[in-house]
């Protein structure tokens, strides 16, 4: 009963909704564009160089690893480009070229490839790189020193540094409007609050970034900062200040909901985001680092497998008592 026609025998289901990893990553890059373009317009050609070089280095490191491991090229799925873009957005505009090479090496190879590639990384790659660079090369990430030659028409001191070393009296000169519109000193892609919120809303509405994590992270930051502020408003800043400065918004929409390092069930996602937000504000207010975002999120990434066990019982599951 063999016919002459060669039919393809595949397994059910024969329909698919058309989603792809590359589509998702390209949309993430599009969503990041407003903030990136703003940063480039502020800091000029050096910022463009950092972003472009970071993306290129990330993709080159991934190609090198693919060749070294004998696997097919995986840069077509766009995840290396997104990692490079996000890492570039987290850097100061004056980051030297070797820092970017080292940072993308850590992000791509140490953060992702040695674990098996996409989907296997337990830690967030750009944040892992950022954490290691911040600890190793602290002066480069001191934004007051990095941006000392820039005068862009607004107050050029780094808001979180002012808060930590001089208290809330020193941040009175930053109006919330300025912080929201992007008139603050900081990393290339993390200063433009409205751009990041716009991009984040786009990703959440299109279903590419899980809103449960983004919103619970923002809620965690907001509520913790509010509680600290209410207890001692001379030392601790208000919640909106913490939302619009530092890496909060870029983390909320682009970094914390990174697929592989965050939980996938509903309640774990909420707990993950809220605790990450809590840790961020704790480090900012009573820790020694100016911005606690990288460390708090990496800490919660370690808790991810345990959190993911909080899930509803499958329907029909027979629980046998030990």
């Amino acid at each position, binding site marked *: *009963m*063999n*016919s002459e*026609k*060669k*039919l*393809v*025998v*595949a*397994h*059910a*289901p*024969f*329909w*698919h*909704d*058309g*989603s*792809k*990893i590359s589509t*998702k990553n390209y949309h993430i890059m599009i969503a990041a564009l407003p903030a990136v373009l703003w940063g480039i317009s502020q800091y000029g050609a050096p910022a463009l160089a950092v972003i472009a070089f970071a993306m290129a280095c990330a993709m080159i490191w991934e190609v090198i690893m693919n060749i070294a491991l004998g696997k097919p090229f995986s840069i077509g*799925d766009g995840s290396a480009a997104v990692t490079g873009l996000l890492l570039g957005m987290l850097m100061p505009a004056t980051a030297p070229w070797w820092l970017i090479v080292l940072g993308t090496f850590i992000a791509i190879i140490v953060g992702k490839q040695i674990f*098996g*590639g*996409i*989907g*296997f990384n337990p830690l967030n790659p750009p944040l892992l790189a950022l954490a290691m660079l911040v600890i190793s090369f602290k002066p480069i990430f001191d934004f007051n020193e990095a941006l000392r030659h820039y005068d862009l028409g607004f107050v050029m001191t780094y808001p979180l540094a002012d808060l930590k070393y001089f208290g809330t009296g020193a941040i009175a000169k930053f109006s919330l409007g300025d912080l929201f519109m992007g008139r603050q000193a900081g990393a290339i892609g993390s200063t433009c609050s409205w751009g990041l919120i716009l991009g984040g809303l786009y990703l*959440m*509405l*299109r*279903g*590419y970034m*899980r*809103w449960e994590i983004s919103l619970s992270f923002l809620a965690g930051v907001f509520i913790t900062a509010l509680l600290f502020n209410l207890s001692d408003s001379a030392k601790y800043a208000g919640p909106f200040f913490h939302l619009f400065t530092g890496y909060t918004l870029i983390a909320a929409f682009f970094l914390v909901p990174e*697929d*592989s390092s*965050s939980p*996938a*069930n509903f309640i774990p996602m909420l707990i993950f985001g809220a605790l990450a937000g809590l840790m961020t504000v704790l480090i900012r207010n009573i820790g020694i680092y100016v911005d606690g975002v990288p460390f708090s999120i990496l800490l919660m990434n370690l808790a991810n497998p345990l959190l*993911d066990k909080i*899930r*509803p*019982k*499958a*329907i*029909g*599951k*027979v629980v046998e008592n030990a």
Partner: protein
Amino acid sequence: MIKRSFLGLVNPRLQYNLVPDSVQELPVPNKVILLLKESKNGAGASTLKVGDGVKTGQRLSASPDSAEYVISSVTGTISAMAPYVGMQAQKYTAITIDASGQDNWDEGFKNEPSLDTALKFFEYAPGSPCFKPFADPEKTIRTIVVNGMDQDVLLTANQYVVKNEAVDLKGGIEALKKITGVERILITVPESLVQQGSTTGGEVKAISATYPDSLPHMIMKNVLGQVVSAGATPEDTGVVFVSAEAVAALGAAFGSGQLRVTKLVTVVGKNGKTTNVRTRIGTPLRDVLQACNVSLNDRDRLILGGAMRGAATYSEDLPVEPRTDGIVVQDEADSAQTTDYPCINCGECIRICPVKIPVNMLIRFLEARLYEDAAAMYDLECCIECGLCSYVCISRIPIFQYIMLGKYELGLIKTAEAASA
């Protein structure tokens, strides 16, 4: 194929096809192929030989006391008998009958509703009803659910029966009560067919038009309020599911005295156009496709069943079986391609799974071939086999295939353990 919606906040919802087309009756084919299941006790003396004459409605089996049989759907002579291996290594004998064109009905069918008659003549009825649980002394069946809704997307055969053959359905339900002695017979229909369903004599229950709410496990949960445990079947909990087409065949047979030998099939062409045809059981697929003007080229997919749970087959010379509810032809360009990318933990599968299985962890264990751990820790046996996880997987992992393979391998492990115990 329904693509991902622009706004991603709501889970994608596949809807059943609720508009049954009118039925096109196909002429008697030149030859039919009937697949006779191999008896459990191995090949006995075969009473069938090439050259035997058969009549329409005649019961053909390998030996007189064999439990497996086929009902001939045409009058003619047996022209070939060959072994055939089907899905999941099930062995059959493929009996090819050259049809003479006229119908000479066999007198063997006794028109009295009893469990014995049902077991002897209706296991091969269109819609594939199974009467064995009623004869099983270990099972007490208290409810029968007549499913007036099709189980897969695109198909409309059962709904056509509820809409247009309600009289036969009524007769069939009465016959069921006499055959099985079960008093509680429910009929599940979509909202649009509640009117017709209430004329059949069964207790009408409306179910939603969203896939996979018409699958037996979902009906058990939503309509009957009973959850079928992992690894058990609805029969273990006292419920038997029958398709509306099978019940209508019962009613028509006891009403007219002639067994029904035709099957209602929904044929879906490449452009999505659906047609309902009624054809003799055993008609080669080629004849059905030609009658519906559906073209089939190299590298297409010829799917028996629906688009979500069907089985792609390798030849158009294979026959229409009593359980073939649909034939879907999918062009190579429209087909869903799978990749060997790993799971990226996006969670889409978890959000869409109707029975809340943590598919992202399950697929990792299945890819690593740890089937016992998958069943113990990540609920492999709870899966109701709807295929929605593979539908939404962004990495294009063939999750459904891994799950079916896992269940098959787990079954082999268990039988090996039982044999050595």
